[in-house]
């Protein structure tokens, strides 16, 4: 890659703020630091039972006989449930959350399998016992007789005639197409056509906190479930499965010890609900690490082929992309993950002539669902590796080829959606590349390579989900503030950001804001902590609520101080006259004044995202998301040509986050997301062989330790143009997306050939080296 000097940033107009934009200590930090934060597995209750799940040891079989009588007879066992006891209840795995839209037919998974099992780890029976040891013992007493059925373990095989079928009529779970412009005419204008296929593996989220929870039935008959989840609105699906009214299920979310999309699906809560109802006693269920690996979703493996027509100057004239994704045994969120990948397939480039065809098929493997990026990272591995291959074919610099094609504000995406906010591709890419500095020198056995990736990623949910968030904000008589907002905090600082926004708007210090969050019964529903949506959605909801209160405070203070409302400033727990600090009223006095006059100082607000009605099914054209975040990453690697080992030498990520509400938290999101992406490229592979998991624990499934990679240097840009509060864009998912393709391109640069399959293990590197030697001798 050539050296670059970034141009100065375009002009922006960001207001100066007191608390937003400061790297304040997060409100949740100290409790976590001293170990006072109580996670889902840390709760216990009097008279509590312990539960275990009996799971399928095989990937594809018919259940011939399930005998739980010995387990039931074991002293200390209180309850054993099978699919018969749950009356064949199914879990609606589609469209989680608060959306009122119809669900898609055929997406349900049985709570407990009773006729066939479709993957290793599929739940078959539940046990609740006086102690965990007894529950474990009871599992061993369950007798399962099964008859193996032919299985299918590859999505392409799964779509061939004669393949074993998981669900009638065929294994296709979802299919999309995009038709934009005139593909053939575009290809005809090309000087060269470049074609490549790229493959990606299953990936495990590897959040550090295994799934867990406690449930009980309260004195109103409401089933309470305390659980680590990204989606408290699952109470609705659980109510449906239990056939009880929705107001009889209460989810009390806990601080989540990492989710990354995996805790977007229902995990332990459905089992807990059934067992608590059945036994009438509190029940606890915590997954072991092995169970958390086997029984929860994975990132979708994809095979992506790009056929791109380009002119000699690098301009793309036409692009044809095909994608095949592995849905595993049940659909879960596959249709939406595939939609994301499809709509982002062409990358952040202006491409007028485009075809995308994508399909996801079921196999007898661990099911796949949401994982940070939601199909975006797979799409990026396709389009960004292809950009480098185009550059190589044309003999151009990788960044230069991108610069010719970058979309700009006002251009449209693959689905024809106009980008309305800043599209700082050039700005982020040049800064990431420039920050790499001097390149290390290669030796004959240590080849240095550099790579970069420019990516875009949506934030906010698909607009035809009609997404909403509610938040309640109130002032106490001592001038402190309270927020009630159902936001699940999954570790990214969701609740802190909301507090910082309220602190700013109401002019109270952050440590005088308290938030009650993530309880489906007592905190207004704020929607899922997924899709990089909470800062956008709930940030806007608390802004609406606190601005209403602010206006009331200012109106009353203006009368009191004898000035106009716009002559006042609100900060440091007081309202003062602009330019005359001696004239002020303190919050505590103002709040009491309002209270005595009946002026309400609490407000419940709802923020609605823009609503649309979906894409044209023939062309895939239409608006999907509220907005996009743009970013880039550049890395330098050293490849040892004798051992095949790859050392990451430098990594720099640069994103336009619109406005950083808390820069320390934003740096953390980018550095942490990058690390997951680096692991994706270089080490992570959730391996299955004929449906059997080969990487069942942290001993086999390796995630990056502190020794594996240098810290990613982070550069935050603030265009101020996002649709979130104060012009913020989302960063949770976008942070991960460019890391893996940047590494892929660096490895290809170092070796001179591309390895088309992730992760880049020493074995694959050596095989690539052998291929080069073979070709040259």
């Amino acid at each position, binding site marked *: 890659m050539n050296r670059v000097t970034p141009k100065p940033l375009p002009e*922006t107009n960001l207001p100066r703020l007191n608390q937003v934009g400061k790297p*304040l200590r997060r409100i949740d930090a100290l409790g976590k630091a001293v170990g006072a934060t109580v996670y889902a597995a840390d709760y216990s209750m009097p008279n509590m039972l312990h539960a275990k799940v009996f799971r399928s040891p095989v990937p594809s079989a018919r259940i011939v006989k399930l005998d739980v009588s010995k387990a039931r007879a074991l002293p200390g066992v209180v309850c054993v449930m099978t699919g018969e006891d749950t009356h064949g209840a199914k879990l609606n795995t589609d469209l989680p959350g608060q959306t009122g839209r119809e669900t898609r037919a055929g997406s349900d998974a049985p709570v407990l399998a009773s006729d066939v099992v479709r993957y290793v780890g599929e739940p078959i029976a539940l046990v609740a016992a006086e102690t965990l040891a007894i529950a474990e013992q009871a599992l061993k007493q369950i007798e399962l007789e099964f008859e193996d059925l032919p299985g299918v373990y590859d999505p392409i095989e799964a779509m061939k005639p004669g393949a074993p079928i998981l669900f009638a009529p065929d294994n296709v779970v979802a299919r999309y197409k995009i038709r934009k412009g005139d593909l053939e005419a575009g290809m005809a204008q090309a000087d060269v056509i470049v074609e490549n296929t790229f493959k990606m593996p299953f990936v495990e989220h590897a959040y550090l906190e295994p799934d867990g929870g406690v449930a009980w039935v309260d004195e109103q008959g409401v089933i309470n479930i305390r659980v680590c989840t990204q989606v408290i609105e699952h109470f609705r699906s659980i109510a449906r499965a239990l056939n009880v009214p929705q107001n009889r299920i209460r989810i009390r979310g806990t601080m989540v010890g990492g989710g990354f999309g995996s805790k977007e699906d229902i995990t332990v809560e459905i089992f807990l609900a059934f067992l608590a109802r059945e036994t009438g006693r509190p029940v606890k269920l915590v997954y072991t690490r092995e169970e958390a690996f086997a029984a929860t979703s994975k990132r979708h493996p994809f095979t992506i082929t790009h056929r791109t027509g380009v002119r000699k100057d690098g301009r793309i004239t036409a692009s044809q992309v095909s994608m095949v994704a592995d849905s595993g045994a049940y659909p879960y969120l596959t249709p939406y993950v595939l939609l994301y990948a499809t709509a982002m397939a062409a990358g952040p480039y202006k491409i007028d002539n485009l075809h995308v065809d994508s399909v996801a098929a079921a196999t007898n493997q661990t099911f796949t669902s949401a994982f940070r990026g939601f199909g975006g990272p797979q799409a990026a591995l396709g389009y960004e590796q292809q950009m480098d291959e185009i550059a190589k074919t044309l003999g151009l610099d990788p960044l230069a080829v991108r610069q010719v094609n970058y979309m700009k504000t006002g251009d449209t995406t693959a689905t024809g959606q106009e980008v309305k906010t800043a599209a700082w591709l050039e700005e982020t890419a040049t800064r990431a590349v420039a920050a790499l500095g001097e390149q290390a020198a290669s030796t004959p056995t240590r080849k240095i390579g550099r790579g970069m990736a420019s990516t875009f990623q949506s934030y906010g949910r698909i607009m035809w989900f009609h997404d909403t968030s509610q938040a309640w904000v109130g002032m106490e008589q001592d001038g402190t503030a309270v927020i009630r907002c159902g936001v699940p905090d999954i570790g990214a600082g969701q609740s802190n950001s909301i507090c910082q926004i309220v602190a700013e708007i109401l002019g109270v210090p952050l440590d005088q804001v308290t938030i009650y969050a993530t309880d489906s019964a007592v905190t207004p529903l704020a929607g899922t902590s997924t899709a990089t949506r909470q800062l956008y959605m709930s940030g806007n909801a608390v802004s609406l609520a606190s601005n209403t209160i602010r206006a009331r405070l200012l109106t009353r203070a203006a009368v009191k101080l004898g000035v106009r409302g716009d002559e006042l400033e609100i900060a440091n727990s007081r309202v003062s006259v602009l330019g005359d600090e001696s004239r002020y009223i303190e919050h505590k006095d103002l709040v009491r004044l309002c209270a005595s006059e009946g002026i309400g100082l609490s407000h419940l607000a709802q923020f609605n995202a823009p609503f649309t009605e979906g894409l044209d099914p023939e062309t895939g054209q239409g608006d999907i998301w509220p907005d996009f975040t743009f970013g880039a990453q550049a890395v330098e690697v050293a490849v040892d040509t004798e051992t095949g080992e790859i050392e990451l030498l430098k990594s720099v990520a640069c994103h336009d986050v619109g406005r950083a509400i808390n820069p320390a938290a934003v740096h953390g999101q980018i550095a942490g997301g990058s690390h997951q992406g680096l692991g994706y490229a270089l080490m992570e592979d959730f391996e299955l062989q004929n449906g059997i998991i080969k990487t069942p624990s942290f001993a086999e499934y390796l995630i990056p330790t*502190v020794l594996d990679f240098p810290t990613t240097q982070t550069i935050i840009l603030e265009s101020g143009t996002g649709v979130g509060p104060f012009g913020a864009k989302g960063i949770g998912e976008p942070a991960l997306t460019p890391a893996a393709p940047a590494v892929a391109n660096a490895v290809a640069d170092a070796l001179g050939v591309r390895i088309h399959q992730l992760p880049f293990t020493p074995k694959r590197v050596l095989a690539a080296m052998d291929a080069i030697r073979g070709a040259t001798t």
Partner: protein
Amino acid sequence: MPKVMNITLTINGRTHALGVQPNAVLLHTLRDLGCTDVKNGCEIGECGACAVLLNGKPINSCMVLTVQADGADIVTNAGLGTMDKPHVIQEAFADAGAIQCGFCTPGMVISTKALLDRNPDPTEAEIREALSGNLCRCTGYGQIIAAVRLSAERLQNLSVYGASSLREEGREHDSSNRVLESGDQTEVGGAS
């Protein structure tokens, strides 16, 4: 049922006389005694979330039988400090943005304490080595390394100036200062 064995454990300064099964694992014993700050992330010694100090040495409590710890002095993260009186290391983790989901934090703090006890001024390589048994899936480790450095600096100030001056400084750190890896930056668009 195997025979219950009688042992004593001193946990965060309190001595407990216990009857335990010979196959009981220290991690579970500690959690059953209410030390829920000791986290269970894998139970096979691969994640470090269950780390505690056993007679001053950091160990993964999932890899030790409770009976092996008979008579030992055990310190968990919660034994180092509280919300009102956090340990310098705990406060540094909070200030440095080293905590996201927080599930790895108790183990990280324990490993940091063990490191700084024997090496008060560690290099980055020494910090990485000391934390190599602690997985974190959220942060990418950079802000954790910064937190260890910040801890070391504050502890050194403490030993030079005494506790009270550190407190003052600690307070100022609360609201404004933050530790970033060198090179991290925030850039706002041009002239506004």
